[in-house]
């Protein structure tokens, strides 16, 4: 009985902490978005996006601060934060989802779908992202480009600027992961 107890203890302990080591994190993820119109091209880049993958259930999450996006024109950054995204109220954009049919042991490039919920400006929408996963001996890099609609996230664009800001925004990300330790 005592042996059984010890076994249970050890099992339950490893069962818990073992999964902790099966997480990988990206701390300097790059997220860019582009708006192309005939009037004006707007580009912004964030170099401090975070992402984490839990291998035990193939869950993935990402989070970024909106006020660290860098624009070519300084005034655009101010307008972006104050008039459109309302960073004071909604400081972050987050994603929570799952990599479908993910095989973590596969070495090389594989393309998988990531399904989940993207939250921006207080609005959460389900999205699907076709993502390229590059695994070179345990170093994972995730890259993807996807399109998103400004209208979906309740971002108001004044009619006068309707020609300057595209209705679909192209988002690109690149996350380089390392083992996660608490």
């Amino acid at each position, binding site marked *: 009985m005592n042996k059984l107890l010890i076994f249970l203890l050890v099992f339950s302990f490893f069962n818990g902490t073992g999964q902790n080591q099966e997480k990988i994190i990206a701390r300097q993820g790059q997220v860019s978005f582009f708006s192309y119109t005939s009037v004006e091209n707007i580009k912004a880049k964030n170099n*401090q996006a975070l992402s984490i993958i839990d291998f035990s259930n193939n869950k993935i999450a990402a989070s970024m601060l909106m*006020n660290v996006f860098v624009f070519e024109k300084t005034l655009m950054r101010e307008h972006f934060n*104050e008039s459109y995204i309302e960073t004071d109220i909604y400081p972050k954009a987050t994603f929570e989802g799952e990599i479908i049919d993910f095989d973590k042991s596969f070495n090389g490039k594989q393309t998988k779908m990531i399904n989940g919920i993207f939250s921006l400006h207080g609005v959460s929408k389900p999205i699907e992202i076709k993502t390229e996963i590059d695994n070179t001996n345990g170093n994972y890099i995730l890259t993807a480009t996807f399109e998103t609609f400004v209208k979906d996230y309740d971002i108001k664009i004044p009619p006068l600027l309707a020609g300057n800001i595209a209705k679909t925004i192209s988002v690109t990300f*690149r996350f380089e992961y390392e083992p996660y330790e608490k």
Partner: protein
Amino acid sequence: MKNRKLILACFLIVGLLSQTNAQDNLLDILDAEHPNEKIFTAATFKMTRISYGQSIETRKKGTLETYWSYRFWNIPNTRTQSFFADKVSGRLALEYGVTDRFSMGVGYSNYDDLFDGFLKYKLVRQQPRNDGSPVSITLFQGGSYNGGGNPYANNNDDFNRLSYTSQVLIARKFNSNFSFQIAPTIIHRGMTAWPSDPTNTFAMGFGGRFKINGHLSFVSEYYWVTNPLKSKETFDPFSLGLNWEIGGLMFQCMLTNTRSLVEDTYLTQTPNSFNFKAPNINLGLTAIYIWHLKKKKHPPQNKL
């Protein structure tokens, strides 16, 4: 045996708990990982002026602001044939951001015949988190040269035509919709019309901005002048206005009792009180356009 069952149950619970711990919400883990770097409150006022007076905002590095501001009013009880308004007072100015915190500008206003120049430095920046400064502080130093002089003044030479204004602008953005500023001000005027008029004047400014929506805000400003001119009656300047901006273009529309557009004249020589009887109240219109002379280069992008 009973004890053993209890212990067994305990281990099972511990095991379950450690398992649920391991499946912590991934977003909670990321929340703790966000770099704790300094973030400064942006857009306390958005424009470098609240309405007629300076705000704590400075132009960012490499941006040039072109500034056109006008006041329109009518002469009462006379039949005039002027189009739109009898009198116009205007100021044209340029303001350039040398660094993100330091800007300078020059301007000319026709009504007072003043050439003016100023330096602005943002000394302290408010941080939204509790560990930083609760307010933003900007130092303002302006000077003006009176081109027309004053035939009645006893000291009408070039040097005495200069006036200086020093301000400490202190503002706080209380929430995303409301900002408030106080502005202790000292004005030194080299030239006074009468010996009884003070050469040094002290004023205290109060200004606020209330955001109506993403692009439109309501502003109001008042300066309390402690020692006004003695040779003629002057009043404290007051304004009610709407500020509207879109892209690089900004508009101000205001009702105010001051006709002058440079600090030393609007604070010491506002001839009317704020009421709706002509010619006390002026319609003020300002147009600002911002040119980005230097664009930020994006950091080199890794191969995607």
